[in-house]
């Protein structure tokens, strides 16, 4: 199903996918992101790390304009996707979000059945011609989300009746079911046990060959394991951005260093 797209995409490698220039984000009066410049490459996993409340989620939500839904939130500066300004008035945020999928920090399954949770995206995007196609997409997504075994017997049960970690994986599966070009994941493994975490990390790695993935994480180890690029945020600033191994082994900014060395576990 998805192969055609994938083939087409293989042409360009590691070009810049997202470019942010002087991005500021305000919640009402307070400035949550204080002027950020960043280039996110295609076919790369980029990790956002930083202390809680530093603006990781906020910036992540800028990348697919999810911040549009918060009344008090205002974004200035320029963010481009494949060279096109995503905050341009002509850009259809819906189309943008279809390209740029998202897994939210708090798992938010639809109050529908597990099946419908996954099938919703493919349905509205017309990705399945037949019911069998759709069944197939649902199964594949759930498998890749590492939750198929747990839910295969209860696809009709409500998605909200799952455990915390299951909901999180359901949301991951939901996000990849629409085959987006970029996947934004806000702490996708926070509620997962090590085994499930490993499976999701595998998935991320697999996605990387074709898509671009941005992941917010609090686990330095995870960032080190899965990402090629790491961005360190601090109090709304992008303090440091570079290849992951460099950041972890040889941080340039003292704040980065203290954050990384202050690490635990």
């Amino acid at each position: 199903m998805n192969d055609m797209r994938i083939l087409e995409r293989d042409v360009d490698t590691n070009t810049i996918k997202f470019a942010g220039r002087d991005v500021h984000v305000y919640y009402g009066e307070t400035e949550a992101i204080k002027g950020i410049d960043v280039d996110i490459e295609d076919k790369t996993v980029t990790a956002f790390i930083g202390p809680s409340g530093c603006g990781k989620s906020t910036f992540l939500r800028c990348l697919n304009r999810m911040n549009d839904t918060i009344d008090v939130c205002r974004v200035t500066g320029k963010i481009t996707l494949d060279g096109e300004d995503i905050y341009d008035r002509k850009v259809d945020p819906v189309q943008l979000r279809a390209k740029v999928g998202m897994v939210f920090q708090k798992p938010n399954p639809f109050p529908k059945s597990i099946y419908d949770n996954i099938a919703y995206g493919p349905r509205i995007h017309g990705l399945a011609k037949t019911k069998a196609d759709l069944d197939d997409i649902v199964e594949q997504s759930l498998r890749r989300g590492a939750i198929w075994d747990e839910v295969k017997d209860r696809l009709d049960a409500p998605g909200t009746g799952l455990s915390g970690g299951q909901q999180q994986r359901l949301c991951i599966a939901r996000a990849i079911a629409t085959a987006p070009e970029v996947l934004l994941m806000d702490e996708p493994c926070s509620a997962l046990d090590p085994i499930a975490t490993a499976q999701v990390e595998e998935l991320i790695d697999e996605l990387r060959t074709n898509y671009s993935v941005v992941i917010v994480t609090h686990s330095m180890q995870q960032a080190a394991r899965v990402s090629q690029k790491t961005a360190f945020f601090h109090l709304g600033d992008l303090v440091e951005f570079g290849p992951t191994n460099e950041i972890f082994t040889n941080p340039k900014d003292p704040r980065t260093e203290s954050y990384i060395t202050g690490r635990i576990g």
Partner: protein
Amino acid sequence: MTDATAPSAPVSGDAEPSSLFTQTNRTKRRNAAEKRFKAYGLGAIGIGILSLVVLLVSILGNGLPAFKQTYVVMDVTLDESVLDPNGNRNPEDIAKVLTFGYTPIIRGAAQNLVREMGGEVEGLTDGMIGDMISKEAAGQLRRFVLANPDLIGTTQEFKFLANGRIDGFFKGRVTMESAQIDSNVSPEQLVAAERLAEAGHLTTSFNLGFLTAPDASDQRPEAAGLGVAIIGSVYMMLVVLALALPIGVAASIYLEEFAPKNWITDIIEVNISNLAAVPSIVFGILGLAIFINYAHLPQSAPIVGGLVLTLMTLPTIIISTRASLKSVPPSIKDAALGVGASKMQTVFHHVLPLAMPGILTGAIIGLAQALGETAPLLLIGMVAFVRDYPGAPPEGLFDPSTALPVQVYNWTQRSDPAFFERASGAIIVLLVLLVLMNLVAIILRRRFERRW
């Protein structure tokens, strides 16, 4: 939000590592408050249901007799000299004999019947006997003769309505004592009626006519029925349902989900709540001005009534729909937007289903209001005396008709007490219609009512 359980209790009392089985004073107090709170809730529901029961009992008590009716079965000789003076069976000539001509025939037949039974009732005059039969009988007989001119000259058996007071006697509304002082009925008539009943000429049976017949004038309460009113009400509800619900929901969706939040939407919001407070008769004024005087729609027509009631119910539906749209958690919307659904898809696929119970509640309450409203119909000509049935829809929507609440309103104003019973009967019909109409909504609502 300051609360009744505000910090006031001594802390030391709680510090004791207490058993779960022994409640601290504070817990006792809080639990008592909890019990009270729950009892208030139960009491509130109790009061509501009790009121309902009281009202229903009184309605049923007054109205159920309306579903029964007393009839007189008797033979009538269709006297040719009166009914077809020219003797040529020409329908046109027969039609020239008005009901005034038929009345003496029926009265005569009734007198014969009573006299033949023997056992003179003292003081019973011929006039009194004639008055025992409904005035409706003449019309009934005339229709029969016009339909069957060949039967003129023969004797046929007819089932006529008994006069309202006689009917009331068999329902307990009229008694011998009251007849004594009532100038419209005499005890002698009641005695005669009892005899007729014993002889099987006077029977009480289910009153189908109450549901099917049109309204009747003040002189014939026994003949008055709800046929036209039921059709009119159903037509109007069709219009309201087809317009108010979609328009109301669409308007709410726009205002709640799409409209920019600025002073204009504030004005619209205030304005809609304000419309809910506009007395319903004002909507009648509006309907008269717009639909009849400007758009030239016919008077007394269910289409106009439906449109006016639509405008009147819209605020109710909009307010309740908006309230429930507002209560859908934003995280659900985020989830949908996040997989690339458009705002429209988000609303129609996720928000609306979650808001459905509130929308249906609005519909239930709005329709209840629309179904029971009289005042706005006053000005567009539906508070009327209508005896011809409107046609089948859609044309029938443009024919004159009344509505159930109008019939109730009219009947409670009539002087003959028999109409009061009919009015209560009409209320029963109205409530049944209401429940039937809302049943779908209630069942649907229960399906959507799931806490996630």
